[in-house]
């Protein structure tokens, strides 16, 4: 699943380590989320969206799922 996490981080000058610590995961998980290798759970998605003060749909790209529905 594609995400806007990397773009949002760079826009706000936040490192992967800072984001990881804030949402309670390892830096490797943030890397995997940004490269689309790993799909976050609902709880993690909510935490990341809340961290950026955005909705889940603003951070995570659900366009592939919408095509399936």
């Amino acid at each position, binding site marked *: 699943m594609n995400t806007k996490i990397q773009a949002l981080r760079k826009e706000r000058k936040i490192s992967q380590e800072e984001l990881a610590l804030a949402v309670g995961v*390892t830096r*490797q998980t943030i890397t995997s989320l940004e490269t689309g290798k*790993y799909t976050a759970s609902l709880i993690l998605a909510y935490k990341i969206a809340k961290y950026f003060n955005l909705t889940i749909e603003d951070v995570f790209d659900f366009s592939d799922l919408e095509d399936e529905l």
Partner: protein
Amino acid sequence: MNTYPGLIKKRLIGIHLFNVIAVCFIGIAFWISRNTSHGSDLFDGLTLGFQIGIFIGLEVIMLLWAFRYKKALGDEKLLKALYIQEHDERAQLISGRIGATGFLIVLLGIGLATVVAGFINLTVFLTLMAVLMFSVSVKAALKIYYHRKY
């Protein structure tokens, strides 16, 4: 996270208990090996070495973990890092996948070894058969348990 320091302290007690048991086992193993023989110096050495080696290896790992836990209990940042490392969802997913796939591969390997052993040695065949049946029973029981739980 609030209960995590308490959990770490319990683990430390468990580690210390294990270390005491391991030292006792190593002593008992040496004493038993002096009074029994499998008929071959090589075999005696191999079995004793393996039994003691496992416990020494586990002790070293336990001591490393004890050191890590003690350090974390004295440092809030380290404690949080340890907590995150343990509860990271991606790491848990990977562990789960390794467990499931690895267990299946091991079962297949034991099954194959059981078949081959059947042509060579009855004792080995029966032992491997018992291990295989136990492993399959454990997998079945866990499957039923988790299906009901979730």
